[in-house]
């Protein structure tokens, strides 16, 4: 979609951010002048055509900014005299958020894997392994015959036998890799491996808790997050908290004849990874749904109904905007 600009008393500009658009059609539904149109959703979602989900008709667009204010994904950016209306006190503000509490997070990376938008990055610093194992081994070079049996058996690949110089082979242990499993000691044909067990030497097996500490950082890229709730759902320690742009429900029409595996348009377009085809039928997991309505727009059978009971958009001061936004309450028909 081209950027639309108008210079007058105010300079107004509407620009499209392709990477953020999910093809939900909220903007096309809400546009009072029908200046926005959806492209072929399913072929775009499948990557069969390289087009934007939304196209604009610059002759019809009044540059009112309602579309940008209503887009929960920030895919439309509207500026007045170069100020984004998102930062303007007179304009509506979305209240949905997503965060990961660093205090609670254990850096397991489950959210990073589950996030359908690749919006989460988890980095972690692990303890030094040698400080967590219960002992260490040593090889007596005098006794060792450099047969390489220990090297071959070591599950941690901590033993290296260097036979480059056949007359003076060298064997070494990487203490950072050794897990003190003692397989080498048991297998050594000449008992060249000595083990020093911390438990035996000191009577108790204790690890300094500080040595076992894991530090890290979990970070949500706001620009990519669509508040689907996957991180919140999958987090084993409830460190992720997500609030959604809409509250309501998603259902199918009563006599819906879902074509399932033949079609799967809903599954392909869903930005939240909330839809799957199970036993030949579309199944939506409401926990991950943001009620954006892209699936309802994409379904060729018009079988999906979105009911939005609450919009988490505050500071809607204009009555005409409020009236127009109320149209978002029910989506499904094209």
């Amino acid at each position, binding site marked *: 979609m081209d950027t639309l600009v108008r210079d007058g008393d105010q300079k107004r500009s509407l620009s499209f951010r392709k990477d953020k658009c999910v093809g939900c059609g909220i903007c096309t539904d809400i546009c009072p002048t029908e200046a926005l149109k959806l492209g*072929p*959703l*399913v072929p775009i979602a499948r990557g*069969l*055509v390289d087009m934007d989900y939304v196209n604009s008709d610059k002759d019809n667009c009044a540059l009112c900014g309602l579309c940008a204010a209503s887009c929960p994904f920030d895919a439309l950016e509207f500026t007045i005299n170069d100020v984004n209306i998102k930062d303007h006190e007179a304009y509506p503000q979305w209240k949905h958020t997503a965060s990961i509490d660093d205090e609670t997070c254990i850096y397991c990376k489950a959210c990073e894997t589950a996030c359908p938008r690749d919006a989460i990055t988890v980095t972690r610093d692990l303890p030094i392994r040698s400080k967590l194992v219960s002992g260490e081994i040593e090889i007596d070079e005098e006794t060792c015959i450099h047969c390489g049996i220990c090297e071959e058996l070591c599950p941690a690949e901590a033993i290296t036998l260097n036979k480059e110089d056949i007359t003076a082979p060298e064997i070494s242990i990487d203490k950072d890799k050794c897990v003190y499993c003692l397989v080498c000691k048991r297998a050594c044909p000449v008992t060249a491996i000595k083990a020093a067990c911390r438990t035996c030497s000191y009577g108790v097996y204790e690890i300094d808790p500080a040595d076992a500490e894991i530090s890290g950082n979990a970070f949500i890229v706001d620009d990519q997050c669509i508040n689907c709730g996957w991180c919140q759902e999958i987090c084993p320690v409830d460190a992720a908290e997500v609030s959604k742009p809409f509250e309501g429900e998603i259902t199918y029409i009563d006599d819906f004849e879902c*074509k399932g595996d*033949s079609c799967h348009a809903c599954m392909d377009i869903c930005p939240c990874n909330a839809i799957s085809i199970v036993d030949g039928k579309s199944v939506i997991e409401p926990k991950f749904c943001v009620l954006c309505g892209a699936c309802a727009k994409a379904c*060729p*059978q018009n079988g999906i109904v979105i009911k939005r009971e609450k919009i988490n958009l505050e500071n809607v001061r204009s009555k005409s905007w409020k009236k127009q936004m109320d149209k978002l309450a029910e989506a499904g028909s094209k």
Partner: protein
Amino acid sequence: MPVVIDMEKCGKIKDCSGEGLCIKVCEQGALIEEDGELVLVPEKCDDCDICIQSCPNQAISKKS
């Protein structure tokens, strides 16, 4: 009931702005290309209607 193709609206695939998009979206193989033209294999059509909404020429419908 399988879809119906209006061959006048459809034209040759090489002239289609979707470059035969209906063929690409149909996973049942009910729409195929033969000698540069679109051919419907009615028995394979599952009535999912994805082709109808994807056709840039509005050449596919449910009515004859």
